[in-house]
């Protein structure tokens, strides 16, 4: 076997396909940029006035966030009117509610600790967000919305077909990270940079409309569709996959996405929290897929191909260390071939692929992705860390497969989330008051409870 099937599996078939469509979108949208608005109006789309931030409710679910709630509110208050900001405290036992009230925003508490999805559902109902606003931004306390988010995102709602606008997620590379932290953050940046450009951009073209995730901490939904979405089904460790799947499975409308509507969450900077987070995401995905069997739609086709590749490449990456070992040990130490079973295994693997070809194909294809990201982000540090990304992909793959059977085991999966991290100074947002936004991962109790 030659190098290219391995290279394809490492680079990704879905990336190749959707990146091509994304390129067509880029050309099409650039070409029609100036005439798009007029053409839409000619077709009768532009009759309702454009949405403004006045029409957007911000909904921040919070559980014991006294250290950060005020700065989170101040950060978003620089972009939307204070009266549009809503905080729902779910079972907080600290000063979260008091501090939020002092900040002059709308605050309620859930009657019992109902979990994140439950709190969102209850807040939408009790604040009357569907009746009072046209769109709602679901925002986690650890996420910062970048200036320009609304300018980029709101025009999409001019198209009545659009029911959700997915935010573009970036993670910030902070100073003072440990080496592992740097590697993890860069790996995450790499994933965001690639998936959003090579996958999501093509998936959310107006002629395609099939993306698997509208991130639940930085995206806007048209309030009119919220009543049709079952937000809080039992047994899910994560709510945003489910909300996305509901939109498609119930054919509620289109999901729009632009790289210019940027939200910055804080991603785990240590291995323990990282593994916890990807376990939760992985399990959440499998649970959601199990809850939403496929239908005859582009979404289902996209999802089938995407998951098939996710599983195939995960299995490949988990097997990779074993394959390398079987090929490398006899090459370095030929006497190993006399050990029981080794000669047969070596022969089976070597019959398909040599060590050099396998290594070159894997690192070559992965390095191609890294170069692409370094080019997109214009940061050389990705090239410096290139060797670590394939290793983390092995970890990601192992976790994705490890949690697969748990989609059946834990029907009432409670989750423990990353522990709080030290408050970091963030640069002042342009044109707003200086915000020292504390960007902190939710407390373990919060997310733990926030799952039915």
């Amino acid at each position, binding site marked *: *076997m030659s190098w290219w*099937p391995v290279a394809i599996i490492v680079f990704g078939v879905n990336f190749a396909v959707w990146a091509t469509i994304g390129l067509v979108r880029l050309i099409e949208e650039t070409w029609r940029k100036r005439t798009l608005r007029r053409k839409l109006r000619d077709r009768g789309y532009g009759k309702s006035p454009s949405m403004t931030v006045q029409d957007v409710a911000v909904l921040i679910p919070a559980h014991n966030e006294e250290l950060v709630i005020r700065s989170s509110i101040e950060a978003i208050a620089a972009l939307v009117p204070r009266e549009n900001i809503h905080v729902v405290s779910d079972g907080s036992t600290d000063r979260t509610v008091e501090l939020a009230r002092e900040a002059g925003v709308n605050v309620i508490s859930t009657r019992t600790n109902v979990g994140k999805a439950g709190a969102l559902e209850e807040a939408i109902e009790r604040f009357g967000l569907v009746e009072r606003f046209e769109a709602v931004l679901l925002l986690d306390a650890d996420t910062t919305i970048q200036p320009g988010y609304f300018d980029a995102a709101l025009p999409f709602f001019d198209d009545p077909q659009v029911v959700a606008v997915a935010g573009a997620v970036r993670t910030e590379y902070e100073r003072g990270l440990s080496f592992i932290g740097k590697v993890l953050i860069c790996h995450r940046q790499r994933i965001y940079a690639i998936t959003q450009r090579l996958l999501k951009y093509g998936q959310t073209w107006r002629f395609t409309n099939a993306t698997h995730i509208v991130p639940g901490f930085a995206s806007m939904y048209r309030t*009119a569709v919220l009543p049709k979405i*079952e937000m809080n089904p039992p047994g899910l460790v994560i709510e945003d996959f489910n909300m996305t799947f509901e939109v498609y499975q119930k054919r509620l409308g289109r999901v729009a996405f632009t790289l210019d509507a940027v939200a910055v969450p804080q991603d785990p900077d240590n291995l323990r929290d990282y593994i916890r987070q990807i376990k939760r995401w992985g399990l959440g995905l499998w649970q959601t897929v199990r809850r939403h069997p496929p239908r005859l739609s582009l979404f289902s086709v996209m999802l089938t191909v995407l998951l098939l590749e996710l599983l195939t490449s995960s299995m490949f990456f988990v*097997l990779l260390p074993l394959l390398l070992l079987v090929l490398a040990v006899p090459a370095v130490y030929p006497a190993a071939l006399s050990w029981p079973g080794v000669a047969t295994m070596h022969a089976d693997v070597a019959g398909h*692929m040599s060590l050099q070809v396998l290594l070159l194909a894997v690192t070559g294809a992965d390095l191609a992705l890294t170069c692409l990201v370094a080019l997109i982000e214009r940061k050389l540090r990705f090239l410096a860390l290139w060797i670590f990304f394939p290793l983390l992909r092995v970890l990601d793959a192992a976790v994705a497969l490890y949690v697969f059977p748990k989609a059946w085991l834990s029907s009432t999966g409670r989750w423990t989330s990353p522990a709080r991290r030290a408050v970091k100074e963030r640069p002042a947002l342009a044109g707003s008051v200086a915000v020292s936004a504390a960007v902190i991962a939710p407390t373990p109790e919060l997310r733990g409870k926030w799952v039915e």
Partner: protein
Amino acid sequence: MTKISIEPRRPATPSTGRSRRLRLLTGSAFLLTLFLGAVALLVTVPRMLGAGEKPGTLAVASLPFWNLTEGPNILATNPGTFNEVSPWIYGLARNGQIVPQAPPGRASEVVSGIAQLRKLGMPLVPSIANRTNGQWSYEPLADILHDPAAMTRHVNDIVALVQRENYDGIDIDYEDLPATDRQVFTTFVTRLADALHAKGKILSVAVFAKTTDAGDDPRNVGQDYAAIGAAADEVRIMAYDYHWSGSTPGSVAPMPWVRDALAYAKTQMPADKIVLGIALSGYDWVGDQAEVVTWIQCYGRAQKYHATTQWDRLSQSPSFKYTDEQGRQHEVWFENADSMAFKLEAAKTAGIRGVYLWMISSEDDRSWATLRRILPLKAPSDTEGTSR
């Protein structure tokens, strides 16, 4: 703030128990199907690609013209060990014509041997060597390579021979070309490959093993690996005679050198054209002069002179020393099934097309079991070579 009329607030209908269970069941089936589909993809795609793209492992038996009585029997009694046979039977006359190497007295032996090989049903790819009257010779070949008309005639002769005898192809074993023949030899190989391919026949070319383009001898410059690899179907690397009849005593094919030669070849041509040559015999030195000895002869001499065979871990090959009746010190380096195993593993690890065994004649009787164990061939029905 713009207010738009909204349909009355009603909660999304939670699914009922039964439909929810049905949905979960379907979803479970979908997820499991995806998982099994991924497993199936991982298992079948490498096989399909492997089968479609790579014509399977090649194990070529090289049979010298003087062993065409016993040789075909060895192949017949070891089915599934080889899937191509190259009888080393043709030489060049002084005028450049292709002639049998065997002396006229042994012509009938060759004819019946070839007839027996045909019955085995494996591809038959005879070798032409630049041997004239039992000696390596350069002049007939020089005339062919340096006269365009003679080259055309030679190419046509070879194609006619292959077609007349219904061979599956031809193996070119033209040795000891000067460095200055590099370009003309490439031209010849390329033209011959084109002519044979046009008739659906294959071309194999034997080349000296080397670890750089220049190698360690002008004859290495004469063979342009990249160009030959681009034209021929098989490039047979003669990875033996590192120590030879005119050198100091030592391993015929030391493993580090074999590995380096393979690694270099892989930088010059597709791996699936490379066929590693493995010698089966050895040399018996007295001083700096040696005679070729088969494994049987080595075995006999070790017995006769009560010599103990030593294993050299650097070259991974066996040797022994003895003193003959005239009091001369002998040093014997040879190849057996154990040293062969290392070369077979190297071929396998390198992911090359296969190996050829040079030459089948009184070899270690464990050789063929070793070959079958390390380089198992596909089912005999697949050995027709039709995929080429």
